[in-house]
């Protein structure tokens, strides 16, 4: 409702970490002083089935608790979802769509039937394979989202994610570095 509020919708497949990405994104932004919400859409939960999760970000207290129907940003973790899910639903001409794909943005613009400046592409799966060693595109997509939103400070985000990951993976420092590198690379490479 409020003009300052940013709403994000994540599309993924069960097991790809769409929910985790939304939660991590929210926790990270909280540490930078924002008010946040992160919530998944609960339906039949099966590995590989289409899932959605959501974020609200604001400088003011967020009291609204309805679903998000007109997101400012859509993040697509798996490009095959564009064939089966209406990923542009509720996105107006100012909305941005960030896709994990090896295609270029013009191909995606054509496929989705949106304006040229609405699509951002990033090969997050490739980055994940090269930095983390597994095709888990959710953390690199965080970096891409931070870049596209623009108003957020990537260094703050990286620092806060480092703190989060350090408590979770203190015995596996390579996981932490891999994830941070993937975020930074996606931030730099998204276009």
């Amino acid at each position, binding site marked *: 409702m409020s003009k300052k509020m940013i709403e994000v919708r994540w599309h993924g497949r069960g097991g790809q970490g769409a929910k985790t990405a939304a*939660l991590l994104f929210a926790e990270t932004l909280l540490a930078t002083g924002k008010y946040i*919400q992160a919530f998944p859409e609960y339906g039949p939960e099966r590995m590989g089935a289409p899932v959605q999760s959501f974020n609200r970000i604001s400088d003011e207290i967020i009291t*609204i608790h309805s679903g998000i129907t007109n997101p400012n940003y859509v993040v697509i973790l798996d490009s095959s979802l564009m064939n089966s899910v209406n990923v542009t639903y509720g996105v107006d001409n100012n909305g941005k769509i960030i896709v994990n794909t090896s295609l270029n943005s013009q191909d995606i613009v054509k496929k989705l039937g949106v304006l040229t400046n609405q699509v951002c592409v990033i090969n997050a799966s490739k980055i994940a394979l090269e930095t983390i060693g597994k095709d888990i595109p959710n953390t690199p997509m965080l970096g891409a989202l931070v870049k596209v939103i623009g108003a957020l400070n990537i260094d703050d985000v990286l620092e806060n994610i480092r703190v989060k990951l350090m408590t979770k993976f203190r015995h596996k420092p390579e996981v932490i570095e891999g994830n941070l590198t993937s975020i930074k690379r996606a931030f730099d490479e998204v276009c």
Partner: protein
Amino acid sequence: MIKTVCSRGKIVAKTGNEVMAEAMRQIEPDVVAAYPITPATEIVQIFSQFVADGIIKSEFVAVESEHSAMSTTIAASAAGARAMTATSSQGLSLMWEMLYIASGLRLPVVMAEVNRALSAPINIHGDQSDTMGARDSGWIQIYSENSQEAYDNMIQSIRIAEKAKLPAFVTTDGFIISHCMEVVEVYPDVDVKAFIGEYKPDRYLLDVKNPYTLGSIDLQDYYFEHRYQLAKAMTDAKDIILDVADDFKETFGREYGLYEKYMIDDAEIAIVVIGSVAGTSKVVVKELRKRGIKAGLLKIRVYRPFPSYQIAKDLKRIKAVAILDKADSCSGAFGPIYSDVAASLCSIGMVSSCPKIVNYVYGLGGREINTDHIFSIYEKLKKIVLGVENFSNKIEYINVRIK
């Protein structure tokens, strides 16, 4: 939620279930007996991990059903322990006969409850049919708009229940709050422990020096007196809840009452709600105020005991009021909150000059309710005030397909 005036806590991002488990960790009851059920499972899952990790000394009893969960907490409470549980929907239904035992025996069991629709048809999403059905069970019912309130209400409910000698539950809306991560201020363990204090029951079954009888047969000669005492305890609990809220405000800085008035004092049209939709509605009220429309909102926090007289006094001069129920009584008449509010207005002699009141039922089985729906309700109220539309004398259903 009202803004912090003396923040001493830590700002964290947590879901409704996580903060309820966090409150239970800090309360560290002697006994928790529970059975998992969506969407409340995480509360006891996280809590049982605290026990397994040796972080707290509570006794966790993994029972085989909710009926046993409630039976076990009742027994533990009767023995003199601080006892808690958590459940939702069908789980609460299975506890049914034991709910009345807990209140009838005047045992301060405290429960975290996540509102979810009742079967059939089976549905895991949020509505308030489960706890609304328990409205006559003698339990104190405290509803939360968001995770912060869920956390604060859990802490307060321990003291309320123990002072009132009544069981109490605190609810959140299933998934909408239970699974939504948002910003919560959590307080230091030591402050929470100091606030709730040590549980010192006046009498308890394991006090072998002072034996007494509990739960014996009670026929025509005394049953009525005991039920009267239970009803009176519920009425008296209003002051206890306000006293605890005063202390809470002094300690942690957040203000709570039996209900929250949001821009209601000069309102011409208003809605009465319970739970998370209050937050969504506040966005609408703010917007309407910007447009010069005198809209207000009254959010019921404590539904049992029902703040009848107070609510009626605050609503009586408003021209048109919509009362929103997230449960349908299937009574052939009206929803539960409407019935209570309407009766309250009549009880203060408002029958002839009563506000025009409309009953809406919304959100059953987790059906979406958003700002557009709330706007349409205020729009209808405006028309009723202007006299261009009559107010309905039956339930209006929001966002449902009706042939």
